[in-house]
């Protein structure tokens, strides 16, 4: 099982698509840097995959002013939580 990180904004749809195609059930996704915009209600629908857990790095969401706008399906975590996710999955796959 893998933790996938995604740091690209929504206009880079191919990065998101490559990420989703690479995911196995049980994998998790953490949105970082410009990737956090995918957690907005307008975009979260494109991330729907059966039972996919979607995390959002709080520092990056806060920086960009979207903390109060995040879709309910997105779970906010901080850097310590990010580290924990890396440990609970077998490997990390970075999409950028």
């Amino acid at each position, binding site marked *: 099982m893998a933790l996938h990180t995604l740091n690209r*904004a929504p*206009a880079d749809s191919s990065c998101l698509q490559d990420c989703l195609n690479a995911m196995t059930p049980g994998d998790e996704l953490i949105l970082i840097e410009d990737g956090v915009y995918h957690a907005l209600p307008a975009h979260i629908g494109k991330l729907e995959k059966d039972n996919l857990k979607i995390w959002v790095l709080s520092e990056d969401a806060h920086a*960009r002013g979207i903390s109060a706008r995040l879709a309910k399906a997105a779970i906010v975590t901080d850097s310590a939580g990010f580290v924990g996710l890396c440990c609970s999955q077998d490997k990390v796959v970075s999409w950028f």
Partner: protein
Amino acid sequence: MSKSVLIVNRKAPYGSSAPREALDVALTCGVFEQPVSLLFLGDAVFQLLKAQQPDAIGQKNLASNLSALPMYDIDQLFVCAESLANNGLDPDDLILPVTLLEKDSVAPLFANHDVVLTF
């Protein structure tokens, strides 16, 4: 011999330095008293979003700097209406009053400026 400059923003804030570099060029052209317009396309509309607080990621607040543009007599700010809608935003979500451009009005903006710089 003044020339109008259109500065095209395509990138979201903070992930890359492009937005800040675009802003610095806009301010400099303003100092040279060149007519400057800024256009925000796609992910770049997020540059104008309220409530940005980038201290925790070690960066300066881009929105604060953008909101100072009118003080430098740069008030020609154009936002692609489709980009705003695609991101689920409306003009009230932005830090500044902007002119919304429908899809057909984007190309004339390029035609109406002497020089175009993209970021």
